[in-house]
């Protein structure tokens, strides 16, 4: 295809630029249907203790088509660098590869990342061979530090996780995009299709979201809306939008006007 526009992450290419989480769904069937409707090729998962007294018959991974979907383990819930490193090592041993969403939470109420701890953990994990995708604030300096540490992408938040507020600071995202040599993925805080379209119009390489789909009244419809939003925003970015001007420019020619 002449018009192939692929996302490249950790040496692998993807057609979809929408990465989705697998949390908060009613059941595994809905999770799978939402991934399909979103057209996602990368999905995030969390690492948690097996319930020893009731291990259960089914596991999330049994319900996903792993020949088509890349699993992106997340260090969600970790609040120190050492916890995140420990979780990452366990995730890798569970056998889904080296791709890792690095998340070190600094505060329970905002779920903002602990940037210093994230940079510390990233440096260790990159050396251990992980393809590290860090969740960070929309801070261009933090993005630069993580890129310098060898991260395969940077993932600034749009707004607090699960808030649905959309991109609060598009100007910071733009600065991050201008400075970045690695893919920029907006992660967390988007609420609806126009939010993801805006992220892609700014030039972001992908969007990662969970609650905006799982928490919608009709998750599958929203998953489709998000897919279309990402596609529309990406195409608009590549098409090159017209500049904003204060005054009108007529669409019809002046020549030949009745006198």
């Amino acid at each position: 295809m002449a018009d192939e526009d692929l996302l490249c992450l950790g040496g692998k290419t993807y057609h979809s630029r929408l990465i989705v989480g697998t949390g908060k769904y009613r059941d595994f069937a809905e999770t799978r249907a939402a991934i399909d409707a979103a057209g996602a090729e990368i999905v995030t998962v969390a690492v948690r203790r097996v319930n020893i007294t009731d291990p259960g018959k089914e596991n999330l991974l049994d319900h996903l088509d792993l020949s088509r979907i890349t699993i992106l383990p997340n260090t969600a819930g970790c609040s120190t660098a050492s916890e995140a490193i420990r979780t990452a090592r366990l995730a890798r041993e569970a056998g889904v590869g080296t791709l890792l969403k690095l998340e070190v939470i600094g505060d329970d109420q905002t779920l903002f990342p602990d940037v210093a701890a994230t940079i510390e953990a990233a440096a260790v994990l990159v050396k251990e061979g992980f393809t590290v995708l860090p969740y960070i604030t929309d801070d261009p300096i933090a993005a630069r530090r993580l890129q310098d540490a060898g991260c395969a992408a940077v993932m600034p938040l749009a707004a607090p996780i699960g808030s649905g507020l959309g991109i609060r600071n598009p100007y910071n995202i733009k600065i991050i995009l201008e400075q970045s040599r690695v893919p920029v993925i907006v992660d967390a805080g988007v609420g609806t299709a126009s939010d993801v379209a805006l992220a892609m119009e700014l030039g972001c390489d992908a969007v990662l979201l969970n609650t905006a789909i799982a928490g919608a009244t009709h998750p599958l419809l929203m998953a489709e809306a998000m897919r279309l939003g990402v596609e529309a925003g990406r195409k608009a970015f590549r098409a090159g939008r017209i500049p904003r001007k204060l005054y009108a420019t007529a669409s019809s020619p002046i020549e030949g006007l009745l006198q």
Partner: protein
Amino acid sequence: MRVTLNGEPRDLREGLTVAELVGDLGLRARRIAVEINLDVLPRDDYPRRALCDGDVVEIVQFIGGG
């Protein structure tokens, strides 16, 4: 012998290997990872690693998450 398994004390028979424990728990076919005393245990070592009194064992899996 007593080990701590996923945060709970558990009495297990002497010399039980990690492979046997995983089998007893019905997790053999599952994508899991095992950590003993804060060190990840490679899958190939499950049959060789016998648990010892006082070991702190964590068994994790992937669940839905953002």
